[in-house]
């Protein structure tokens, strides 16, 4: 089994995290020799839309199905439930070429998910082993970091815009990840979105404990793609934001 490189992308809501992730996925998908699993861990499921991928079923749907099925008088052995989740999980993968997308969805029902969550965790861990690259678009804020969801990723990319509020969240993520040891990440860095120049980006990054991986200029093309709901797979390589993301991808370890 090849080693997977997992990269999680997090940050404050509204800073352009999902657009950045979509561009990163586009850059990496072009590397046809690598099979990539994209996990949309943001309950809003915006990444799937940005990539033009239709999600038929989310992890939360699977959870509900399994709980419903095993609470209707047929408990099933652990092996059987495991196989059931495995089947459902595979049918939830949206496949596009060398890429597969899995959406987590939004847990809404009350009740205990612990057993199913444990099984899901095991199966997703097995699934991840089949991909060379894993990209996780995390939930906005620090909750998933705090809950150690991202503990074993290789790269943790914190996206921020130039606002103080977003930079404060980035600092908070760093604090939780490093000081609270919520992440064993090999590499952690900051991506500044909607910056105007190297100088402005470097100045802002200097206020953060995070290493600056790169900055992305304000780009009308991103706005246009978001506005019209166009797939970021069709995003032009010549766009300034795309060039920046290509440089950031080179800095991260994807081998």
């Amino acid at each position, binding site marked *: *089994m090849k080693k997977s490189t997992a990269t999680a992308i997090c940050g404050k809501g509204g800073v352009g995290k999902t657009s950045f992730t979509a561009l990163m996925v586009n850059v990496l998908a072009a590397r046809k020799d690598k*099979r990539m699993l994209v996990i949309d861990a943001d309950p809003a499921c915006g990444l799937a839309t940005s990539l033009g991928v239709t999600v038929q079923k989310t992890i939360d749907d699977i959870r509900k199905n399994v709980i419903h*099925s095993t609470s209707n*008088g*047929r*408990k*099933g*052995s652990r*092996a*059987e439930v495991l*196989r*059931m989740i*495995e*089947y*459902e999980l*595979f*049918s939830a993968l949206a*496949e596009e*070429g*060398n890429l*597969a997308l899995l959406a987590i969805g939004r847990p809404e029902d009350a009740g205990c998910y612990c057993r199913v969550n444990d099984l899901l965790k095991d199966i997703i861990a*097995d*699934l991840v*082993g*089949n991909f060379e690259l894993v990209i996780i678009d995390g939930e906005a804020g620090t909750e998933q970091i705090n809950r150690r969801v991202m503990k074993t990723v290789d790269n943790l990319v914190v996206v921020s815009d130039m606002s103080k509020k977003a930079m404060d969240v980035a600092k908070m993520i760093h604090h939780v990840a490093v000081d609270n040891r919520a992440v064993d990440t090999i590499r952690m860095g900051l991506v500044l979105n909607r910056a105007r120049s190297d100088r402005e980006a470097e100045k802002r990054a200097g206020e953060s404990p995070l290493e600056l991986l790169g900055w992305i200029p304000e780009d009308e093309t991103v706005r246009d793609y978001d506005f019209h709901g166009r797939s970021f797979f069709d995003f032009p390589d010549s766009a300034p934001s795309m060039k920046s993301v290509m440089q950031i991808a080179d800095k991260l370890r994807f081998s």
Partner: protein
Amino acid sequence: MELFQHIFAAFREFLDKKDVTTVWNADVAHQWPAGGNRNIVMADTMAVELGNPSAESLSAVLWTEDLEQVSDGTITLIGPDIPESRGVSLPYAKIVLLGVNGFNEENTCDRFGDLELVKYDVDLRGFMLRALSRRQNEWCRIDGDAWEKGFSFRILGSELIRLFRETDYVHSAEVVFVTSGKGDVLELKDIMRDVTQIVGALDKMNTDLSFDCSTCEYQTVCDNVSGLRSMHASMRNRRRN
């Protein structure tokens, strides 16, 4: 103990009226390499797909103690084989017929569980299987490398027969694959509907602690299939003791 006698008869009738494409003898000596943990076949490397959830699929295991009803080592295919189906997603049914002995009220449920799990032991490089036993669905993919090396239903059937024969109470094994069309799979599903019900009743006996038949959804199944009631009574006594 015979649970599937009427289904065996209906299934043989189904086979008699279909155009059988190929019949092979299992080649259990020929070993296809194992796939290990890397058993996922993604769409980009897939050559052939069987039983996609959006199509029809069926997987059933029937057993009998009447060994004459099972043609040991025979693999039958109705419909196109894998080598001639590159780039195609086929509807899929797989029926395994087993000649067994020693099934009784006390061991049938456990043995049923064991036989249901045998399909997951199939570990062939380039072959992926996902199955939902409760709905008797089976979804398989064959990757391009396996396809180029000649992966076929004979290889899959031979492996299944080899694995089932490893179970000490299984004396003979026969496999029938159907890929000829959605209509044929649906027709088989109709024939195998009772299997689903019997399997459901067995499953419930195996996992549910309730012994109140008056509230059980499988009451009519147990009324119609001889042997189920005595099996249930035997389990009740075992648990009480």
